[in-house]
């Protein structure tokens, strides 16, 4: 602590003469001070909770699409997990197979698990984030926490883009020899859309909420430990 107080007092003295003007030097120093901040116990505990939130993402789906039509009043369900694709199974039915069978009429490629490289790298990345958060707790530095958070934001955005792109490709690369010709389309990502006789609903699944929760907890822990800087 004495080290820190010493540092802060030097900061204060530096502020005095330059009041009212932006000083790049001072800002950088302040930023450095921020990144060097130690993580408080509260923050570390919250980060631990955040790490735990990553575990259910291997159990619950990231995304859920439901296709309703007259002959499917209970809807056909498609679940996208971080590591696989699955359909609903009411009364022994296999919805994924059914969706593929129906899609072949409009020349859409079948949704095959093996076609998705995401099922390899998404679980790997989530595992890496799990380790990074544990590392942050142990090392206890703001810089680690910020690194992890920023990296995670990038990972989320990239994954989302990848998902969007997948859907775009499936809806646009239709076999020209398909028995039923439909104009290329973009399947819904969030919300609903009418596609031929189907109303398709698409919403994030529980795993996505856990990932959002993970991010929010990291941000909260940044705030909690970052607040410390202002106090001084």
């Amino acid at each position, binding site marked *: 602590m004495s080290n820190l107080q010493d540092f802060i007092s030097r900061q204060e003295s530096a502020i005095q003469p330059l009041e009212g003007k932006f000083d790049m030097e001072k800002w950088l120093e302040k930023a450095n001070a921020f990144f060097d901040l130690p993580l408080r116990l509260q923050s570390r505990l919250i980060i631990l909770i955040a790490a735990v939130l990553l575990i259910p993402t291997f159990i619950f789906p990231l995304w859920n699409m439901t296709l309703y039509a007259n002959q499917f009043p209970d809807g056909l369900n498609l679940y996208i997990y971080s590591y696989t694709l699955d359909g609903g199974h009411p009364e*022994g039915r296999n919805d994924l*197979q059914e969706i593929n*069978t129906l899609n072949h009429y409009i020349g859409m490629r079948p949704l095959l698990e093996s076609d998705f490289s995401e099922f390899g790298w998404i679980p790997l990345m989530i595992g890496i984030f799990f380790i990074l958060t544990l590392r942050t707790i142990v090392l206890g530095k703001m810089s680690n926490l910020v690194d992890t958070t920023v990296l995670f934001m990038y990972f989320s955005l990239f994954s989302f883009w990848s998902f969007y792109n997948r859907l775009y490709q499936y809806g646009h690369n239709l076999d020209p020899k398909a028995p039923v010709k439909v104009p290329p389309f973009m399947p819904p990502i969030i919300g609903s859309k009418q596609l031929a006789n189907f109303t398709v609903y698409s919403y994030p699944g529980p795993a996505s909420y856990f990932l959002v929760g993970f991010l929010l907890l990291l941000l909260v822990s940044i705030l909690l430990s970052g607040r410390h800087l202002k106090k001084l």
Partner: protein
Amino acid sequence: MENVRKKIIFKGMISTFGLIGILSLTLFSGCSRKPEVEKGTEKSSTIGAAVASYIAPGDMDEYYLFYSGGHSGNVFVAGIPSMRHIATIPVFSLYPSTGYGFDQETRKMLGEFTWGDVHHPSLSETNGNYDGRWLFVNDNANNRMARIDLRDFKTKQILGPIPNVSGYHGGAFVTPNTEYILAASRFSIPLPKGTYAPIEQYATDYKGVVAGIAVDPKTGEMSVGWQILMPPFDYDLGDAGKGPSYGWAFWTSYNSERATGKLEVTSTQKDRDYIAAVNWKAAEQAIQNGKFKMIGGVKVIDPKEVPDIVYLIPCSKSPHGVDVSPDGKYIIGSGKLQSITTAFNMEKILTAIQNKDFTGNEDGIPVLNYDAVKEAEVNVGLGPLHTQFDDKGYAYTSLYVESAIAKWKLGTWEVVDKIPVSYNIGHLAAAEGDTINPKGKYLVALNKLSHGRHISVGPSQPESSQLIDISGEKMKLLYDAFTEPEPHYAQIIKADKLKPIEVYKKEDNKHPEAIWDVKDAKVERNENHVTVKMIAVRSSFEPWKIEVNEGDHVTIHLTNIEQTTDMLHGFGLNEYNINVVVDPGETKTIEFVANKPGVHPFYCTNFCSALHQEMQGYLLVKPKQSASTGMIR
């Protein structure tokens, strides 16, 4: 939400029907031939009936009704209270609708017969209650017994023709834990089957048989079980004891005169015939102790040599039904040519047996003293046949001659209500009405004649089934339904006791030749045997082309790789008399000899999809080379 919706529909219906009622009253009050008051009463009861049996589109029935289909060889499935026919389960007859009897498995099961006569469906029981596992039905014509699995509503086993049993009418009735299914000979013959004896020696050389078909408690697999040699009467209907009568089986018999010829006269001379009471626990034991002889390859007990197994209870003339009360205390027998139904007391039967209170014997089988075992004679009406029970201690007896049902109280033996039916009722079925826990609420009258109750369809008329509300003091007619010939008996089970599957899951398909990927579809030749592994999926067959030579033996293993409900595919082969239907996830095998040269289209017979019509292919049969010239014939 659902309840609110139902209430609204209910209210809407009442007001709609009410309005119709008022309108018709106003319109026809001037020209009605019947008194106005009567018209009004009739109308309001019709409204009540309509509401009570109405199942709104999309809503579900509360009970399943399993009808026997008589000489159609089928079982019919309907819903109660709507009485809507929902499905037909083929059992003993070819049924192109589901491809039954066209694929190898079902062809083998049917054997040499193309029809059967389904009489008495019997739901499997555990502790005297329906357990929803299997439905057993007998074949009166060819002496067979079939098991339908209620998991997929398909016939899984046909046992028979059962040795020695001739005219299998007295079944299927199951014991309280489905240990045995009752079986009996309606037409006594010389035994074993194939033996000749002149008809003049009927009374001595012809034999009746009562039997118990054993059921494997896990798999439902049936085997012949035990048989008992009986005097040459006509064994008619049966029921298994429960509670205090557990371990006993009962059959009615007519023609104790041992008469031949014009039976309507010759077999109706005596005032009493018999109910045969069989201690099946003792029969089981006797077989284990080696007290049997082999007849027709079956272990048969001769009661002359093994006493204490069979007794005869005198019953009023030409009895038809025998039914055990839910508590197992009373055995109800009805003589169809008298107007009384007799309740025998099981306790009294056991006492009479113990005291050897016999009045004679038939071929060594003791006849119990009627007065010692009788509890009551109930004056039900003309032509009593069968009795079923409700949850409030009432019994319901069908009256064939009178065309009515009598409701009477067990214990007080008083007839409390009677309802006319249209017309000539045979069996009747109450909701779980032959179990230890009848549900009450509904009863179905299975009537033999329906004339004038429907728009005419010419001389060949359907049977009529009437739904009757038995929840109140008075029985109320709710609905007239019509079926193809010919329901004899039916059983009613609460719908939630059944959990049918709707798709055969890929992982549960054990057919050794099933394939799931079009890459595995192929045509293989081994000399003159051609084997095809084929896939059916919306909207194509793979392979769609089968090239063979005239005279080749062709085997097609067809897998429907769909995994969604209701996506059936058929395979009809033009002019080869073949049609199979394959359910989602199912594999069926078709075998035939390609003896017709030329090009034969095959196509999907069960409408599947928007491109169903395109689901087709060709069997190309190359004509044989002419032996002398080497030219194609």
